[in-house]
Every structure is written in structure tokens, then in C-alpha cells.
């Protein structure tokens, strides 16, 4: 019964404690194994599909070996200290968030060591340690407070830096925060109750001074009432000085060895004062016991569920950071990259820093498509990789994910800003590969799956469905207005100056129309025939036609419009898999 605070020894049946402890421990370990195994199972990107599990494990071993015995070992140690412990990347970007994380990290770790593992750690390091002695009373409260402050700060930051962008929903994160809060709360309450509890006093008195007779203990009680905050309901201050004097002698004889004044427990002590009125009640209900149970089992629960909550990033992020440090980016093999991508899916904190700085964030906001934002894109990429996205069968999701993936400009800001140091650009590239393989390639590609006429007929078949949302007026004002092409005199200058038509001389990249024919189809009222045409999608927007049109037609602007219109209308009529 090495692990566990002394107080537990006194109150909890060993077997129960142990079974619970080992069960949750086992769950935790299994969970960790399962989660981390995903780093070798999950495949993001076409190249990842090419590598086998053994290759990836091999890459892991090789990587570790070179890391440990290679030249970069110092580099890695540095990363260990600066990146992992001091959260350097976060410090460089957002100081308040960094502080929040640091508080939680430090507070939690110290509580774990000093309090949870006291018998294992503290007692060994500090002979004569007693949880009820100064400064431990104070420190325990302090560490707890750090964690609470950290959480509060993070939530405050999130609120303060809200960007108007939807952020990824993270139910487990909240659940875990609640659990953590619960552990701390029960801890504080337990402590507070014990401070104020007469029953606790009597039990101690019985054990150490052998008597429980109130009269006999009167002086000691007086001292504990006035200086240790025990809430005796039968005593009233002030006490006579001689009584106090006596009491102090008894205290020094029996108690002082283990008990410092609790006022240094700057959280629990005030709480105990608040509890005073109801202490008797709590005593009757043996609050000391059930609070302890709650506290301990909450800890176990946390332990058991840790791999499945967001707290898992506490494991994944350091590993990710160390992996980054272990080798320069380009040095990773295909297998290595594959594992790294899978790891990245777990290591994302959903902190939203990337979203805030994303170059296409305004587009995401205006198009109402969160999948343009890195954090959402990462979730979708994961979902696509393990098949959830398309199993969900929600076509619209498929589109929006694809739209997000292909509107990304690869500006690399997200990768630069990621506190976990994830190589997101690599992830996006891989994700696009997966989308294409899943039948969700870039619009310019899926349009090619059918000839222009087939698209037109698909549109006619779906006529009525799209008319409601047909954005012609706002998104295609030119092609919807005959005045913008009625001046065309069929002179074909647009085609003569078009580099695309001029160069599309090989069958493999032939365009099916010419700019002039597109304008003419508009005149013929056959606009739908143009939406899926190669000419419209292969227009290089070089503006030669528009610059040279003798009649001042805005040919290129119309081409752009037609693509936008096509993306909208063909997207609506097309099943989420590319037609074949």
C-alpha cells in the first residue's frame, strides 16, 4: 500500500482501494497502448497507404535509435526541456495561454508527486513529512490553486480571443475539465471538513491521548477550537487563559508533532470556516469518508479515462515535439511521415491559434464553411482517414470538406503557429490526396468526370431543386444578363488571342469549346451547356480575351462567374462520389 496518501490507509479497505486502483491503472495503460497504436495504424495520405505496419514500426525503432545515439541527442534534450517542459513554442506565440498551460502542467505534476505519491516521493525526500504540517498544508493548497487558475485562465483566453469563427466541438474536453475540477473540489472539501470536524478531533484524541472524555479534553478542545478551527458546538469562546495554557501543554505533548496551524491551507481553511455551521451534520453523515471515496475514485476515473479525453494531448504533444526534434523535416521516410501524420491527429490541442491566423479564415467565415479552418480540417482529415466522414454519408460534409481542402492556399501559417509543432501542410497535402481518392477531388477535377452535355442534362434533371438556391443574380450577374454578351459579333478575336486554345493541341488536354463558343452558348440560352465544359474550367484567367474583345465583352470575368456557378450548381446535382 505504498502508493496513496496516509489518510487513505486509515479509512479505505485495502482490497477495494487496490482493485479500483489497478483496474483504472490497467484501463489507462490499455487505453494508452490502443491510442498510441493508432499512430501506426491510421493512414493519412495516399503515400501512407503504401507503407505497411512493420515498415512503420521499423521506422519508429530506427528513428528512436538514431535519436538516442545520434548526433541530435543534445538537440532532443534541449527540446525536452524547452519545448516539452517550458512550452517554448506556445511562449513565443501567446503568453497568456502559455501561462495557463504552464500553471496546469506544474500544479498537476506537483500535486501528483507531493500528494498522490506522497508515500513514494515526498516521504522519501522529506523525512518527518506529515501532510498536516507546514509548509505542506500550504503547498498542497497552492498546487491545487495553480491548476484551477490555469484552467480559468485558458477559458478566459478562449473567451477573450473569440474570433467569430466556429471552433471544433470538444465534449470530452469539458468533461475532463469537470472531472479535474471535481477532484480538486473534493480534495479541498475533504481537507476543510477534517479541519473543522469534532469527530475527527475525538478520533485523533482517542488514538494519541487515549481519552475521549470531553471534560478531560476540554483544554485541548479549547485550543483546537480557537487555533485549529475545529467547530465544537458545545464550546464558546473566549476561554480562560489558564485553560488555554493547559490546552497548549496537552497539544504540544500529543499533537504538535503532526499538526501545524491550518491557516496556511489558504483554500481549505476558509472553506472549513464556511462549513463550521454544518460540520455536525457532515460528521453525522461521515462526510470524511464519502468525500474521500469521491476524491479517490474521481482520481481513478481520471486515470482510467485519461487516454480517451483531451488530456491525452499531454502525452501526444511531448512525443510529437520530441519526434520533430529527433530529425529534420525532410529526413523522415514515407513510413516515418505516415506515423507522424497519425500522431498529429492526436497531438492537436484544438487551441485554435491556427484558425485565428489562417489566411483563408475570412473566406471560411463568409462561405460559412468551417472546414477551411485548420483545426476543423484536421478533424475532418482524421475522420476521412478512418472512414467516419464518408460512412456518415452526409454528402454536404463531403463537399464542404473538399471545398475547404482545395481553397487552402498552402501559406503555411498554421504550421508555423502550431504550438504542438505539427507539420500541418504535410497533413493537408495528404488529406487532399485522400479526398481525391474518395471521389472528392478539386472541382476542376471532378467536373472532368462527365462531358459538358452530361452535366447539362444532369442539371435539367435536377431543375427546380437548385433554382431556389441558384445564385445567378448575385454570383453570376454578367452571365445572367443578356446585355453583357448581346454585343458579340462572332468575330472570334477572343479565340485568336486565347493561349489555352492555342496550346491545347494534344488530345490529352484538349479544350472542348472556344471562348467565342462559350459566349455564343450564353446567347443561345444554353448556359448550362457551358458549366461543365473544359474551356470554362481550363480558362487561365489571363484576360487576353477580355482585353482584346472589340465589343468590350468581359469574357474572362464571365468565365470566372461560370466556374463559380458550376461549383455551386453542379455540386448540388452531383452525388458525393465523382460520377463515373
Amino acid at each position, binding site marked *: 500500500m505504498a502508493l496513496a496518501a496516509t489518510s487513505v490507509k486509515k479509512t479505505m479497505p485495502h482490497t477495494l482501494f487496490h482493485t479500483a486502483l489497478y483496474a483504472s491503472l490497467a484501463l489507462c495503460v490499455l487505453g494508452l497502448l490502443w491510442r498510441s497504436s493508432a499512430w501506426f495504424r491510421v493512414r493519412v495520405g495516399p503515400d501512407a497507404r503504401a507503407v505497411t505496419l512493420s515498415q512503420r514500426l521499423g521506422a519508429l525503432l530506427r528513428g528512436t535509435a538514431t535519436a538516442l545515439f545520434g548526433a541530435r541527442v543534445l538537440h532532443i534534450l534541449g527540446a525536452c526541456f524547452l519545448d516539452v517542459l517550458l512550452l517554448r513554442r506556445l511562449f513565443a506565440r501567446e503568453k497568456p495561454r502559455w501561462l495557463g498551460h504552464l500553471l496546469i502542467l506544474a500544479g498537476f505534476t506537483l500535486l501528483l508527486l507531493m500528494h498522490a505519491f506522497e508515500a513514494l516521493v515526498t516521504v522519501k525526500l522529506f523525512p518527518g513529512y506529515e501532510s498536516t504540517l507546514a509548509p505542506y498544508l500550504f503547498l498542497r493548497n497552492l498546487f491545487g490553486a495553480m491548476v484551477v487558475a490555469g484552467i480559468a485562465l485558458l477559458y478566459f483566453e478562449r473567451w477573450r480571443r473569440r474570433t*467569430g469563427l466556429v471552433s471544433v466541438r470538444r465534449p470530452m474536453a469539458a468533461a475532463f475539465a469537470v472531472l479535474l475540477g471535481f477532484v480538486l473540489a473534493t480534495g479541498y472539501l475533504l481537507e476543510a471538513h477534517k479541519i473543522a470536524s469534532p469527530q475527527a478531533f475525538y478520533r485523533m484524541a482517542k488514538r494519541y491521548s487515549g481519552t475521549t472524555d470531553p471534560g478531560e479534553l476540554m483544554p485541548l478542545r479549547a485550543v483546537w477550537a480557537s487555533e485549529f478551527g475545529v467547530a465544537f458546538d458545545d464550546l464558546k469562546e473566549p476561554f480562560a487563559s489558564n485553560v488555554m495554557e493547559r490546552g497548549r501543554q496537552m497539544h504540544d505533548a500529543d499533537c504538535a508533532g503532526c499538526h501545524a496551524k491550518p491557516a496556511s491551507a489558504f483554500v481549505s481553511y476558509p472553506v472549513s470556516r464556511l462549513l463550521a455551521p454544518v460540520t455536525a451534520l457532515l460528521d453525522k453523515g461521515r462526510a470524511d469518508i464519502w468525500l474521500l471515496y469521491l476524491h479517490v475514485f474521481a482520481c481513478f476515473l481520471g486515470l482510467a479515462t485519461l487516454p480517451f479525453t483531451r488530456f491525452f494531448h499531454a502525452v501526444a504533444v511531448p512525443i510529437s515535439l520530441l519526434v520533430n526534434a529527433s530529425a529534420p523535416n525532410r529526413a523522415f521516410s514515407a513510413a516515418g511521415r505516415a506515423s507522424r501524420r497519425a500522431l498529429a491527429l492526436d497531438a492537436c490541442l484544438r487551441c485554435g491559434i491556427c484558425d485565428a*491566423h*489562417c*489566411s*483563408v*479564415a*475570412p*473566406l471560411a*467565415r*463568409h*462561405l460559412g464553411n468551417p472546414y477551411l479552418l485548420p483545426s476543423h480540417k484536421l478533424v475532418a482529415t482524421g475522420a476521412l482517414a478512418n472512414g467516419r466522414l464518408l460512412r456518415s454519408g452526409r454528402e454536404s460534409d463531403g463537399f464542404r470538406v473538399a*471545398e475547404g481542402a*482545395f*481553397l487552402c*492556399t*498552402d*501559406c*503555411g*501559417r498554421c504550421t508555423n503557429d502550431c504550438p504542438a509543432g505539427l507539420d500541418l*501542410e504535410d497533413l493537408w497535402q495528404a488529406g487532399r490526396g485522400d479526398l481525391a481518392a474518395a471521389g472528392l477531388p*478539386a*472541382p*476542376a*477535377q471532378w467536373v472532368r468526370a462527365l462531358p459538358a452535355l452530361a452535366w447539362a442534362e444532369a442539371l435539367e434533371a435536377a431543375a427546380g431543386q437548385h433554382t431556389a438556391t441558384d*445564385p445567378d443574380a*448575385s*454570383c*453570376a*450577374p454578367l452571365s445572367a444578363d443578356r446585355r453583357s454578351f448581346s454585343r458579340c459579333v462572332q468575330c472570334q478575336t477572343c479565340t485568336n488571342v486565347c*493561349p*489555352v486554345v492555342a*496550346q*491545347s493541341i*494534344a488530345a*490529352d*488536354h484538349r479544350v472542348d469549346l472556344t471562348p467565342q463558343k462559350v459566349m455564343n452558348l450564353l446567347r443561345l440560352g444554353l448556359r448550362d451547356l457551358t458549366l461543365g465544359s*473544359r474551356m470554362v*474550367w*481550363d480558362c*487561365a*484567367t*489571363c*484576360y*487576353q480575351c*477580355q*482585353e482584346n474583345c472589340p465589343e468590350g465583352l*468581359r469574357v*474572362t470575368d464571365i468565365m*470566372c*462567374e461560370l*466556374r*463559380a456557378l458550376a*461549383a*455551386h450548381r453542379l455540386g448540388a446535382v452531383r452525388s458525393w462520389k465523382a460520377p463515373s
Partner: protein
Amino acid sequence: MKYALFLGCKIPSRLPAYELSTRAVLLRLGVTLVDLEFNCCGYPARNVSREAFVVAAARNLAIAERAGLDVLTPCTCCFGSLRHAISFLEEDPELRSRVSQALAVEGIAWSGKTEVEHLLPVLARTIGVDALGAAVRAPRAGLRVAAQYGCHALRPSNVARFDNPLAPTTFETLIRLTGATPVDWPRQLDCCGDPLHESNAPLSEHIARAKIADAKASGAEAMCTACPHCHLRFDSAQAGSPKPSIRSLLYTQLLGLAMGLDEKSLGLECPESPIRGR
């Protein structure tokens, strides 16, 4: 002279040398560059929603406007997008009001005060050929380059207001200032093929190669570019091609060298490039 520098997405991630050399050259010429948190110029959204495109572009303009600065961009594509957004906003009051609402969410607004300038005209006109000429210390005599304007710098001319789109001279003038010689090449005003790369890669390659071959046949030793898209397209089109390729050289690098700036500060790593001139 003070501008908000609009780098766009391509330069920082794919062509840092352009940022380096632009900053280095303009610093030497006494131009102050301010960095604001801009977003994508909006170009990719043109094929999805005209309005979203304009909103994205207008947000950048509004941010510059809030800082009371004109925008200077070395990216021809971004230049075109931002200018286009302005013309759309000006021709379509409905669009304008919808965009204003979208911007109001962030408490910013577009009123049209901010000018959008491309690097080349700023060098040629605002700073002026005299100032540039004076700054040139080490002319790259004998170097023959093919000036690649980039479509969106020139066309449509009413939107770009850059130069005569059929017979431009700005770039040639700037090249002569460095002592280098601009060659006359038939396909100069053609597209580089970059916008097609996603939709029709073979065609895009074909277009790029045709231009490169043309420039080479016209005696150019380097493609002189002022747009990351053209620049990278030329490089990638030549990557792995058997024929001896001609490298693409950013104008800012050429100018920087002529001004005697060191190659490192211009992001020029390979010293044996033909750009040293004779």
C-alpha cells in the same frame, strides 16, 4: 515613402527569396514597409463565390485603410485580385453594402482610400528611374533577360492601370537600369500556365515550356520575373526536363545585385547562376 507590404500566400511559404530581396532593395531605396496581418487576397475564391472573393480582398484593403497606408504587393496575382475587388466594389453598390456588413463584424470598413500598387510601377514611377539609376553601383552589363510581366499586372488594363497591355515598357525600362538587356520574345505576353496547373497539368506544362523555349530561342539567359506564380511555374516546368534550362531570376534580385547588395541578403544561394553578367 511608406507602404503596407502585401506578400500574399505564395511568397512566404514558397519563395522567401522574393520577400528577402524585396525588403532589402526597398530598404536601400528608403521605402518603409509595414507588416499588417493580411489574409489571402481572395483569388482562390473567385471560382467559388464572387462575393466571398471580394470580402476576402476587401478585408485586406480595410486593414490597410485602418492603418492609413497604401498597399504594395510584389505578387502580380494578388495585385490583380485586389484591384479587381476594387472594381467590383465600385461597379456594384449591392455587393458593396453586403461586403460592408461582412467587414463591420470586425469593425473595419472599405471606403476606397487605399491604393493598391504593384512593385514594378512603384519602382519605375513613384521612386523613379532617376533614383534607381543613381542607386545602381554594379551594372549587370551583358546579361540578357526575358521580362515576364505576368498577366494580372497588365490585363484587363482598365483594372490594372499598369502599362499599355499590348506594348508594355515598364519592365524593360527597369531591366535596362540594371545594365542588363531585355530580349524581345514573341510569347512575352502569354500566360505562364500556372493557374491551369490544378485543372489541367499537361496543358499548363505545355504552355510554360513553350514560353521558356521561346525566351531561350530569343537569346535570353534568364527569365526575369516579378510574380511568385510565374517564377515558380518556370522553375518547376524546367525541373527534370532534359533540355538545358534557363533559370528564372526575380527582378528584385537583379536590381539588388546591380545595387551592390550581397547575394545572401537577396536569397541568391547558387553563385554560378548566369545572373552575374559579364
